[in-house]
């Protein structure tokens, strides 16, 4: 056989699946991705913000904004913790449904009807002066119940359709969001005939839990924040236990993994779907109560502000582990706060910071690829010998 001089081409690179990577490495990759994302943000900032190009030294100020967003002053710290808590509550609410592979994209709506129900109870049952001002402490219990029921109902409807006719839950729950938003618009038009479309904002909340006020340095506002934070932490731990250690949690995991297996071992799938969605909706309703009942007793179509969707990402990033969600919701909130700081500090439109959040998330989510797959590169082209 004669020797040929052709250089044989292997593919430049090819992809293989990897299995069981060391957890330390996995986290290292994620942290690295986050850092890279932040650096990329810096580059984008240079490209787009004029002040930075004029004075490159201000780049430190740029990054400092992120830190400031969290720790500038007491108010910032409390607000940060509160925002993390609300986002965490919604993410945790989604968890049981997602574990069951029921893609609930309706947290926004489920939370919003929770807010609406809480505010509605206050509006109809409260003292006349309270109608548009503050939550009456005596009404807190009915408000909570109303919010839980409303959230549960909003989740129950798609769950029933899924269980009965196997409708697509992703679209159904998504559409329910718009129904909720329009329902809020409708109620506002009824309640606030002046057309301002918002029940007036209240600045002077009563102390709901006096004992907590002491902990929170006697500041009324912070005592409400603390209530929210502690409630959500408790719920997070409870849901973690529910999923990991209870029979219900076991069932919903099996249903999520394989319907046929669930039927095979005699799990009533329809019952599990409905039960789990009721729980998921109820927790969204709880988030709604925290927003509408504890925080500011007001409702408008932006009350939830897209956190129902952000929550999906938070839950996904944490691979549906409620405890890890504490971290992921903190990261998302950290980015959000930093971004709004930047927008003030550099006097730029609010859209640019959103771009930056997107860039960081792109890196973080993209890094999952390197955790699951391995890239093999061509070592070197070989001479062919025959």
């Amino acid at each position, binding site marked *: 056989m004669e020797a040929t001089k052709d250089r044989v081409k292997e593919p430049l690179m090819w992809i293989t699946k990897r299995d069981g990577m060391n957890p330390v490495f996995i986290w290292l990759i994620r942290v690295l991705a986050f850092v890279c994302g932040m650096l990329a943000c810096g580059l984008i900032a240079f490209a787009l913000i004029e002040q930075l190009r004029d004075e490159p030294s201000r780049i430190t100020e740029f990054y400092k904004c992120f830190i400031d967003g969290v720790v500038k002053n007491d108010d910032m710290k409390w607000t940060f913790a509160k925002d993390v808590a609300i986002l965490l509550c919604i993410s945790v609410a989604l968890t049981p449904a997602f574990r069951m592979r029921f893609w609930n994209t309706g947290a926004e709506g489920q939370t919003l009807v929770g807010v609406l129900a809480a505010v509605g109870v206050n509006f109809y049952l409260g003292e006349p002066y309270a109608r548009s001002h503050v939550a009456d402490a005596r009404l807190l219990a009915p408000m909570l119940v109303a919010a839980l029921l409303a959230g549960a109902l909003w989740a129950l409807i798609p769950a029933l359709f899924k269980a009965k006719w196997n409708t697509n839950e992703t679209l159904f729950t998504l559409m329910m969001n718009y129904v909720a938003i329009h329902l809020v618009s409708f109620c506002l038009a009824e309640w606030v005939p002046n057309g301002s479309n918002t029940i007036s904002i209240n600045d002077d909340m009563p102390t709901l839990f006096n004992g907590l006020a002491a902990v929170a340095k006697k500041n009324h506002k912070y005592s409400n924040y603390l209530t929210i934070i502690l409630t959500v932490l408790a719920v997070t731990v409870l849901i973690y236990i529910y999923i990991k*250690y209870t029979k219900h949690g076991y069932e919903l995991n099996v249903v999520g993994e394989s319907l046929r*297996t669930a039927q095979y*071992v005699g799990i009533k799938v329809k019952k599990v779907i409905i039960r789990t969605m009721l729980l998921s909706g109820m927790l969204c309703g709880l988030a709604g109560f925290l927003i509408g009942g504890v925080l500011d007793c007001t409702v408008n179509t932006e009350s939830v502000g897209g956190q129902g969707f952000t929550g999906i990402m938070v839950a996904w990033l944490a691979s549906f582990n409620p405890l890890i969600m504490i971290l992921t919701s903190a990261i998302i909130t950290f980015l959000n706060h930093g971004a709004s700081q930047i927008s003030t500090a550099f006097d730029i439109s609010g859209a640019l910071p959103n771009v930056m959040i997107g860039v960081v998330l792109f890196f973080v989510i993209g890094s999952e690829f390197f955790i699951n797959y391995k890239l093999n590169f061509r070592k070197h082209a070989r001479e062919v010998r025959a």
Partner: protein
Amino acid sequence: MPTPALELKNITKRFGHKVVANKNVSLTLNHGEVLAILGENGCGKTTLMNMVAGIYYPDDGRIFINGHEAVIRSPRDAFEHGIGMIHQHFKLVDIFTAAENVVLGVHAGKKDNLKDVNSRVSEIAAKYGFSIDPKKKIYDMSVSEKQTVEIIKVLYRGADILILDEPTAVLTLQEIKRLFEILRRMAADGKSIIIITHKLNEVMEVSDRVTVMRKGENVGVVNTAETSEAELTNMMVGRQISLNIKRSEPVDPKPRIIVEHLDYTNPEGVKILKDVSFTARGGEMLGIAGIAGSGQREMLECIAGLIRPQTGTITFINPKENKPVTFFHKKISQVRRLAAQGKFHYPDGTRVSLKGMSRKSVRKLVRDEQILFDENEIMPLRDKTPLEIRELGVKLSFVPEDRLGMGLVGSIGIADNMMLRSYRKGRGVFVNRSKPKKLGQTLIKKLGIITPSIRTPVRRLSGGNVQKVLVGREISSSPKVLMAAYPVRGLDINSSYLIYNLLDEQKCTGTAVIFVGEDLDVLMGLCDRIMVINSGRITGTVDARTADKETLGYLMTKTQGDKADGSN
């Protein structure tokens, strides 16, 4: 020595860290020969050929075609090198005609007139002796016709090297014969053919040479004319295997499950089971033979309560009392409910009313048989869900065909899979993981399950180990009826024998074992009776000790108006 058509040198392919599918495999294919690649399921035959066909890329090693090194990165590259592979699962577009499928994906530059294609296809068919109508749609075709289209597809593209992956698995004996004739004709025409198979008789019949693979390695090449089935078996399994499967004598065989006149029509409206009646006896193994897809799966699922037959009855005989299951469990709430329906009576015949009685006294009445369930109120298992069947006290275990999709949950570990059946046990809302964990550890030891840890997702285990987990769990509940569908499919010889022995042990404890199998030799060696199902009908039941293959084959394939067809 002439240049070989295809030469593989030291090919290695890994999947993940642990699985080495091919290890340093070298292989030569000459012009105009039929080379068989023989090996058990999962020994890496298909993986190796997929690398030649451009589906996978080797981690190491080189491929030469006609003496020149070739890099095959995609199926298109493979075609350009004149290599065509006919996969086990056909890749055809259902709503296209044969000819349309043949030209699909051929280079856009040379657009072919469909008329020319039709005549080209007919030409190729005539040359090698295929019978095919180029204008026929795929969905109208039988399995064998579809295979013909696949073969013509690669011939049309000018393939000189044809690789056929288990081509006979879906064919009838006659079709196999015809296929082999065609393969011989193609080889005589100068084509080089590789046929992947694990069936010895086919190797002997069609091939010129045989390459035997074992555990991802090439263990030897022999000329077919100079070898024997025995030698090939030895090469395949690495040592002389005793063909004797342990078969104990039936233990006190008495009817355990009686199935009568079962009819099942699936949601698509296809009649799957037609008037199925049979009896499975305790302490006996009932084999079920039949061409794949004849209704075996549905039959077992009906019994297990997973799907509902339209007509018929399924009765379970309580082994303790040797009479049909009427009512012999202890759930007080159910006793009350049935009593309210007037289904209990005192020995003297008066109706029982349990109103106002405490749990304790009701339990005492049932235990001491002071109240009796009406004799004629047999509890049929039909229309019962798996859970209700269990609540009736019927200990029924089922090893389904689809292990990870039905029997187990792939993403969780052995311990958590152990409690799939039993997680409801115990009061309270929390699951108790200590017992399942212990059971898991016992099984790992007893059955030699290879796993990095008890928490490793079972999906990551090999097929044999997955099956051991499943069978182990189903047996651990000491069932009275054990149904197993293709329990050794895809398993190596050692694991298969382990499973056979486990089933036989169960039989010895008095369990009624129902074994759905595909290998007639195994059925004849392991079971006590063999029942044959053919297109959803029971065509006969024979004594496994005296049965012969011809009879079984005849029962499996004889037509009764409607055709037996394993296709989808």
